């Protein structure tokens, strides 16, 4: 089905319910879908689980969403940054739950969700506190930890250009988690800075095929 094209970010996130798991793209500010995050904040869904590499920078975007208190839990690899004061305060006062996941396991757990993998054995984290309580196995002499998929109800990501079908291309390192998150959510919402007619993207250069994209918002 062709992706739904919208102009209003509010409309694109209006059906995100309380308690949803929302995958949010970006590595720091690169690739962060700021307009979609702002719309989610204004929409006001509560009790959210958010998956992102970080836990917000400064006072805008993801940080502003966290500041509302509507995020019950964040799953990320690197919450602590020089400008993560919003998260730091929530965490230290016990108002947000944190699951720290090694960055590669975070990406692979979402890839697994999108690829229909039930769980997988990763060598990352073996012998560390992040493997405690997880099943371990030795395969061909190497130790692995069992990791489970992270599936999103919604993914909010940012790409550079979409066509009418919903095929996506990204820009430089703003690609980061976008293509993986697009596969791992029931509903994938993408904000782009340009929409072109179907046929104008070189099929050889499409990074995220339209099958993974539900809604496109031109911002």
């Amino acid at each position: 089905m062709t992706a739904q094209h919208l102009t209003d970010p509010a409309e694109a996130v209006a059906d995100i319910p309380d308690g949803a798991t929302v995958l949010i793209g970006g590595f720091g500010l690169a690739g962060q879908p700021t307009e979609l995050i702002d719309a989610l904040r204004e929409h006001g869904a509560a009790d959210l689980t958010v998956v992102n590499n970080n836990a917000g920078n400064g006072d805008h975007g993801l940080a502003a969403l966290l500041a509302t208190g509507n995020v019950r839990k964040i799953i990320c690899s690197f919450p602590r940054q020089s400008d993560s004061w919003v998260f730091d305060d929530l965490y230290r006062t016990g108002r947000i739950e944190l699951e720290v996941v090694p960055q590669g396991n975070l990406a692979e757990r979402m890839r697994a969700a999108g690829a229909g993998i039930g769980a997988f054995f990763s060598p990352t984290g073996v012998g560390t506190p992040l493997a405690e309580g997880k099943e371990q196995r030795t395969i061909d002499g190497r130790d692995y930890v069992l990791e489970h998929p992270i599936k999103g109800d919604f993914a909010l990501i940012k790409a550079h250009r979409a066509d009418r079908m919903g095929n996506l291309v990204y820009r430089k390192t703003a690609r980061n988690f976008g293509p993986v998150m697009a596969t791992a959510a029931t509903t994938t919402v993408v904000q782009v800075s340009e929409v072109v007619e179907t046929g104008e993207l070189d099929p050889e250069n499409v990074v995220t095929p339209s099958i993974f994209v539900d809604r496109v918002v031109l911002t």
Partner: protein
Amino acid sequence: MTATPTTIEHLDRGPLDKHELAALVAADIPDGAFVNLGIGQPTTVADHLAPEQGVVLHTENGMLGMGRAAVGDEVDPDLINAGKVPVIETPGASYFHHADSFAMMRGGHLDVCVLGAFQVSKGGDLANWHTGAPDAIPAVGGAMDLAIGAKDVFVMMSLFTRDGASKLVESCTYPLTGRACVSRVYTDHAVIEVGTAGAQVLSTYGISLAQLRERTGLALA
């Protein structure tokens, strides 16, 4: 059986400064290697890589062929390194998503990574992500994936803490990042091979091997 290498003692000088240490690491990176440099001190190794070495830098956020820090009009918020600093592309650069980026690590495709550390054990265990302090916010990033992924893991650190405690230890007291993953430790006072065979001092700077054994309290070969 190969002969045990002899330690080269540089006693006519003091310890290495940060630039000398970075230059030493850079010189040991094989020509044409795919390399990931960790955030902080390891990043400075890039300043000492000679163009003719043909080293290709990987950044975890999805790029091979990363160039130097961007200046002026080169700054593009969509083109940053793992430390979120704007950088430039080099000819032959490529972009890819996060699962591919970490497949490059976990799949053993990266030749070398250079990381900082709180502690490294003689057996090559690495602790560099968490002090274990109860009020510290844990943040691991890509450190665990890098530690177990690259073919060679070099650690770059000062050998002693400000209190004089050795950061090369019998066994780590900080929470581990990876087990038996470090191959070589570059410090201001010595370069040391570590691993299951124990620690072998390759060279010392401003300190003798005997003094190094005394100050670290380790049975260094």
